[in-house]
């Protein structure tokens, strides 16, 4: 059902586009003009720096503007405001003054082409409203999957109750038969004694079963000991469920635009709200879920999307740190990103496809990514770090090719010690480890 409506919508939209395209081929290309001159501040259906332009000619006419004053306005709003009281009123709507376009003065045909193009644009908000319910259904499925382990526990409890009840009934029945046959009722045998007798009778099976249980307990004990201090799969809840795939994947925003200090600081940095607002000042979300999330950004920035003004009353968004290292480890992003030229995905996985909140990716997931150095130890453990230091090559050719002063210096010193250099090159590669990446004091001091 949804699919058919969606298809119909797409069909309708493309028809509109095709018709629009034919129209604009016939005259001046209004779309191109709009993009070149107006789009920075105006959009067809959304108020931005300037007001929305959908059916603006009709709006001006119906609200009592002088005829033709809108064309004058587009070329030079100052002149229009002086000549027409309605235009004067409009000039007070926005705090940012409009640019003047002397090249459009008197070009009624071109201005009309722009407005025609704008009026043909379908409202994206209306298109989204139909395809909305599908996303909601997906979310419900996820919730069910999440509660699965609780179903198991509940079933276990129910089973236990049934077993107890059946045991009780059986016991009463047996007593009843004994009574019926004239034997003495054997009531003093408790459950424990009964179990003892039963266990003795089947001692071979019970012994075998006991051995299996003890062994599995020991194994699970050791496994749980191994998992102490291992952060794999850690995915703390966040104040806003941030979808990395939309930002870094679909919209192609570089990791380092938001995680701005990755190439000049110890931490990669969590973006401040003003960085969010660089785009979200305009983008307020298509679906209700998106709008709800983005409203949290507006609340933090003290921004009112209705009046498009900042109030200055800000509050913090408190994100939970995901990749936590003990404080006896020194880790520096700049060192890895700039000097080491390590790609973000080596440690953080492919965030362009990550729809959930950020998590510590297990090493098995990291190994699936093309270009990553394959590792075996758990993510964020010391074994994982030094394994990579032993594997990761500084460069396949000369050390100079990395263009980093750090390695150039090491290279220059190495050239004076050919013996060591040749030893390093025995396996045809120079690794971080060979240049001191396994020195304790590199990370612990």
């Amino acid at each position: 059902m949804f699919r058919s409506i969606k298809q119909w919508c797409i069909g309708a939209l493309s028809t509109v586009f095709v018709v629009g395209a034919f129209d604009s081929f016939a005259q001046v290309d209004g779309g191109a003009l709009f993009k070149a001159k107006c789009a920075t501040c105006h959009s067809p259906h959304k108020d931005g720096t300037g007001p929305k332009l959908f059916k603006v000619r009709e709006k001006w006419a119906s609200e009592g503007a002088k005829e033709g004053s809108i064309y004058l306005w587009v070329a030079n709003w100052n002149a229009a405001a002086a000549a027409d009281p309605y235009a004067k009123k409009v000039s007070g709507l926005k705090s940012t003054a409009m640019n003047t376009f002397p090249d459009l003065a008197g070009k009624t045909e071109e201005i009309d082409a722009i407005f025609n193009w704008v009026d043909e644009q379908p409202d994206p908000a209306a298109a989204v409203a139909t395809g909305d319910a599908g996303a909601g259904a997906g979310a419900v499925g996820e919730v069910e999957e999440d509660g699965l382990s609780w179903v198991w526990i509940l079933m276990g409890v129910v089973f236990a109750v049934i077993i107890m009840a059946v045991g009780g009934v059986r016991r009463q029945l047996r007593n009843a038969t004994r009574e019926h046959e004239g034997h003495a009722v054997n009531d003093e045998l408790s459950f424990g004694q009964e179990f003892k007798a039963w266990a003795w009778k089947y001692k071979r099976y019970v012994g075998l079963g006991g051995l299996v249980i003890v062994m599995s307990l020991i194994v699970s004990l050791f496994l749980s000991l191994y998992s102490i201090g291992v952060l794999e799969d850690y995915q703390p809840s966040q104040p806003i469920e941030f979808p990395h795939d939309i930002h870094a994947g679909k919209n192609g925003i570089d990791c380092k635009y938001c995680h701005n200090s990755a190439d000049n600081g110890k931490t990669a940095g969590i973006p401040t709200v003003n960085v969010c607002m660089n785009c979200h000042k305009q983008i307020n979300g298509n679906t209700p879920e998106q709008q709800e999330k983005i409203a949290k950004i507006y609340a933090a920035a003290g921004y009112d999307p209705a009046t498009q003004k900042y109030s200055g009353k800000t509050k913090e968004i408190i994100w939970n740190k995901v990749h936590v290292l003990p404080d006896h480890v020194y880790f520096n992003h700049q060192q890895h990103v700039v000097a080491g030229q390590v790609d973000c995905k080596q440690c953080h996985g492919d965030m362009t496809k990550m729809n959930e909140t950020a998590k510590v990716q297990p090493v098995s997931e990291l190994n699936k990514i093309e270009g990553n150095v394959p590792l075996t130890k758990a993510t964020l453990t010391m074994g994982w770090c030094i394994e990579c230091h032993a594997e990761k090559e500084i460069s396949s050719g000369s050390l100079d090719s990395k263009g980093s002063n750090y390695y150039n210096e090491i290279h220059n010193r190495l050239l004076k010690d050919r013996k060591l250099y040749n030893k390093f090159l025995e396996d045809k590669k120079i690794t971080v480890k060979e240049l001191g990446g396994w020195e304790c004091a590199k990370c612990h001091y």
Partner: protein
Amino acid sequence: MKVKFKAFAQFSVVALLAAACTSDPDSAGLEYMPDMYRSPAVEPYVDYGEVRGQINDEFKMRRSAMVPPRYAIPYWGTDSATVHTLLPYHRMPGRLFAETHGLYQYDLSSNEDADYEYKMAAADVNPLKLTSQEVADKIFAEGKALYQVNCNHCHGEKGDGEGPMVKSGAYTGAAVLSGLTIAEGQMFYSIYYGKGMMGAHASLLNKKEIWTLVHYVRKFQDQKYGTFDANGAQAWGTMAVAVDTTAKK
């Protein structure tokens, strides 16, 4: 009896499985020596509400990464050429920038004309000089790297306003950089404090980086920009477009 044993075995297997599968993504797991994870030494983005078992309500749910005090100047080393390009920006944001761009942390210009400082910025010249082909190439390479990270997603690879965000339909109206008709000082001002829909990028880029980007953007407008002829003279003229400072209110 055998049935009972079977049921018991089944139950224990189910219970074990349930115990194994229940993992709370919100929990970081068992830590040994938790004080090593939340030590008293201050690191950014760590919650210091609890340190070594001591609860401190004042620091609970408060970030430890702080904005530097007002008027603090970052230390940029002792290379006078670098320090010179990184001294605080002398132009103030316009009267309305607090409301339109949220710039409450700055002293605003008191001039009645909201665009006064922007107009004045037209006179500013880029302190990074393209003195030779080598210097120019280095600046353009740096500019390209910065552009990829900070500008590309909206303004597009070629500065045509067709970045991936615009193509995906998420954002409309990124400025066409190759067709800009503003002076380089105004480009700097716009990147630093924002303009129209674009927010301020002063928190993301330092002054040297912004001036590097200005060089890179001018290359979109003039292919010859930053190239030198056989005699080593500049092959580009002054800005091809006339700077129109009267365009604004």
